[in-house]
């Protein structure tokens, strides 16, 4: 995405086909390496969920009217009366008796509470989360990078000072506080925007784009504020480093227009450290909005994962952990590939 903003330089064009093949083998090798990593994650996190105190059957039957016998029947039916090792292999390889086909066949098991496939429960919440975090990240990148580059270019001016103060405030304001204050002002007092949710509810179930946008506005802004603050600070610091380089002065001396120097020569070199934080940011797209989702009643992933942990909904916890692990590995791989795209001097091997 970021690479696409900048045209490839002339020098990298002739070698593109060679590099592409390199990238392919590189990706294939990294993906192969990911398999033992993921297997390790399954063992480690499965053990952690089972060894931590707390028992879902106790929670489900925390009712004095419940008898010991009924509780043990339920425990047996849920296959939770077996040893942790047995449970792990059932979860991984599947078992007819326990009604699961196993992780290796893409079955994460059923949620203990909702009695539905854990994967379905996650997938139906993914679009809402991606929409929110994606919008926020996009706004964050566009505005954050812009502010960062501009304040580096205007180093020491009022704009620079204001942007730095903004960055500190933006990072320091607690999300839940800002969210609640915005709800109070814009939804309760002024009634311009809705309190929360993804669209206005009606039994006709009609959804229109502007209504949707109105619902997205506040949560996306609150979330983006954080990204703007972080990215503008990052970008400003990097840009200030780059501006001092000889090649920048040389480009200016050749008579290249200021804007072109900053964006083509300056920003591109300043982007490398930025890509380092982009990898984790992509992994965080599914989990980074827990608080905002909560305040604005946004029906996304964040709450599901937290509730699953508190309720000890083992299959659902494991499904979220596994998806999270895949995203972290994918995000890091993506940022490694992007290094090569942004800076041809970096070779993947």
């Amino acid at each position, binding site marked *: 995405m970021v690479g696409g903003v900048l045209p490839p330089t002339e020098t990298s064009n002739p070698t593109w086909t060679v590099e592409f093949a390199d990238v392919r083998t590189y990706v294939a090798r990294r993906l192969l390496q990911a398999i033992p990593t993921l297997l390790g994650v399954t063992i480690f996190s499965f053990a952690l969920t089972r060894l931590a105190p707390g028992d879902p059957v106790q929670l489900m039957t925390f009712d004095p009217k*419940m008898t010991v016998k009924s509780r043990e029947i339920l425990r047996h039916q849920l296959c939770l009366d077996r040893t942790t090792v047995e449970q792990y292999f059932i979860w991984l390889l599947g078992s007819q008796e326990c009604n699961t086909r196993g992780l290796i066949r893409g079955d994460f098991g059923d949620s203990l509470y909702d009695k539905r496939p854990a994967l379905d429960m996650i997938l139906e919440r993914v679009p809402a989360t991606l929409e929110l975090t994606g919008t926020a990240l996009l706004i964050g990148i566009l505005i954050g990078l812009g502010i960062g580059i501009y304040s580096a270019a205007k180093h020491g001016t009022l704009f620079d000072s204001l942007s730095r103060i903004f960055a500190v405030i933006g990072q320091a304001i607690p999300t839940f506080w800002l969210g609640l204050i915005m709800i109070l002002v814009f939804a309760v007092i002024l009634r311009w925007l809705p309190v929360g949710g993804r669209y206005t509810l009606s039994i006709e179930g009609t959804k229109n784009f502007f209504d949707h946008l109105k619902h997205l506005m506040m949560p996306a802004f609150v979330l983006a504020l954080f990204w703007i603050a972080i990215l503008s600070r990052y970008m400003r610091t990097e840009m200030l480093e780059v501006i001092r380089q000889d090649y920048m002065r040389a480009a200016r001396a050749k008579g290249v227009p200021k804007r072109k120097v900053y964006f083509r020569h300056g920003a591109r070199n300043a982007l490398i450290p930025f890509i380092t934080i982009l990898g984790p940011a992509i992994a965080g797209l599914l989990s980074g909005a827990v608080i905002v989702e909560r*305040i604005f009643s946004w029906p996304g992933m964040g709450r599901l994962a937290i509730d699953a942990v508190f309720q000890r909904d083992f299959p659902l916890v494991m499904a979220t952990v596994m998806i999270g692990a895949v995203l972290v590995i994918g995000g890091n791989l993506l940022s490694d590939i992007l290094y090569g795209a942004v800076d041809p001097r970096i070779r993947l091997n």
Partner: protein
Amino acid sequence: MKSLPKFTLALGLLALAAFAIAACTPQEVQVVQTAIVEVEREVQVTVVVEPTSVPPQQGGTIITSSFADPTIFNPILWNDSPSATVSGLLFLSLVDQEPFTGELVGEIASGWEVSEDGLTYTFTLRDDIEWSDGTPLTANDFKFSYDAIASELVETARKSNIELVDNIELIDDHTVAVTFSEVDCTALGNFTLGMMPSHMYAADFTDIMDSPENTAPSVVSGQFAFQEWVPDDHVTLVRNDNFVDGAPNADGWIYRIFADESAELAALLAGETDVTGVGAQFVSTIEGRIASGDPLDIFKFFDDGYNWIAMNQANPDNPQNGFEDLNEDGAYTEGEPLLPQDPHPILGDPAVRQAISHAVDVQGIVNKVAFGQGAQIPSNVLPAIGWAFDNTLQPYEYDLEKAEAILEEAGWVKGSDGVRRKDGQRLALTLETNAGNETRENIIVLVQDTLNGIGFDITAQAVDFSSMIGELLGQTFDMILLGWTGKGSDPDDVGLWEYRFDTVGSGFNFTSYYNEEMEAIGQAAKTLPGCDPSERAEMYADTQRMLHDDAPYVFLYNPLANVIWNTRVEGIDPGPWRLWYDVQDWTISP
């Protein structure tokens, strides 16, 4: 120097921000000092209504809210209150609570007879009820639903509902006889679960766990029919034109889910939701809004639950079952004798438990922490169960001097560090509650403070709910603060006090309480032939007094709950036991 003005500017802005934040701290909440223990009695008033030709306002949608998502809409599989709420509007049950008294009355049942031996209940079902697809609702649907609970193919936390049921016999389409294995005055309470439409499921129960009906019921018997569920967002129901008591006036009913209580309150104030309940901390805000003319109304009622601090009477380092497990099956089997417990080094002494009961300032806690929304209780039966509540029994008086005197007399004397000791045992205890529940976290700190003042050394800890339940049922705790809700309208709670329910890891007599006399009376009251309320009330008066004196719990308070609605909803008449029972008659002004 360029940096000086920048620095000043930054400071200025920070100061501004600090002011803004300070300006937004919540105002002092006025604590309402009322504590009415008596339940408000509903007075029957006959209102003569002029016959009118104007039909009630049709259309509109009732929007309610909750801060938890439902999980499943199958009436025998749900296990949480949001699912129960939605399921209650979709499916009628055999019997249900009368909204104002809590007494169990027929819903699908038009009446029932109990055999002389008290073991067989013969229910007559209304013959005019149809499912929303036009199929008649019959006794077979009842038998199917309860047989399903018993089936080994069905994983449900409702197995205890059929545990005492020996046999369900269909007499005809609208008559069914249920035979119990022992007399139980609380038996009817097992039949408040909604009935499933048997014609939508395989007769051998094989598809119940995986049926699409669980998440999107297509056939219903209640006021509303299912339309849509977006998890963590909303559930939409639409009018059931086939509802037996007439289709609702409203077109639909929407259940909006808010993850955050403040957001839920904001939606009510912004007019986005119509009916909801709020936490004690928000009641004064709402009452202020009503006083200043906001179109809201509130109904407050005592919830059917209470908060308590359990005091473990057995040694937490050596948790034991309360019975000798002769056949080693891990559970109580008929006839297994009592196993005397290794007593708790401190709480095993009744004097200490009584001293603690005197030292906890319950009224102060209600005022300071629960914002006045609750009333102190003397024992285990709630005032709302008027016929069984012993109103002559007084709660423990808050009296620190008396508490200290009891401790002195029992031989607990202060050491040089200000902590009491007896035979080398320090009066040091751990008091826990679940993290994240602000009210409870505040209570344990207040209790810690007073008890430490009279020579205890209390460690107060807030722990994750699930871990806490593990400690509670595992009987490895000293003191835990928690509450019961949904106690229902029968005073029976023998499961909390009998030795056979003292099972490590799963039994609810987790305090290892034992009182032979109290156990005998409790059983007699539960299994009294004929279940005459006045006779049972006398027995419960005795058990309440014994529990009060033995103090296995510090009985704290009965919380005051509320329903708040926007006045554009008309015809709403909430009772303490039920809210939605007459939702078909509600109207929404446009």
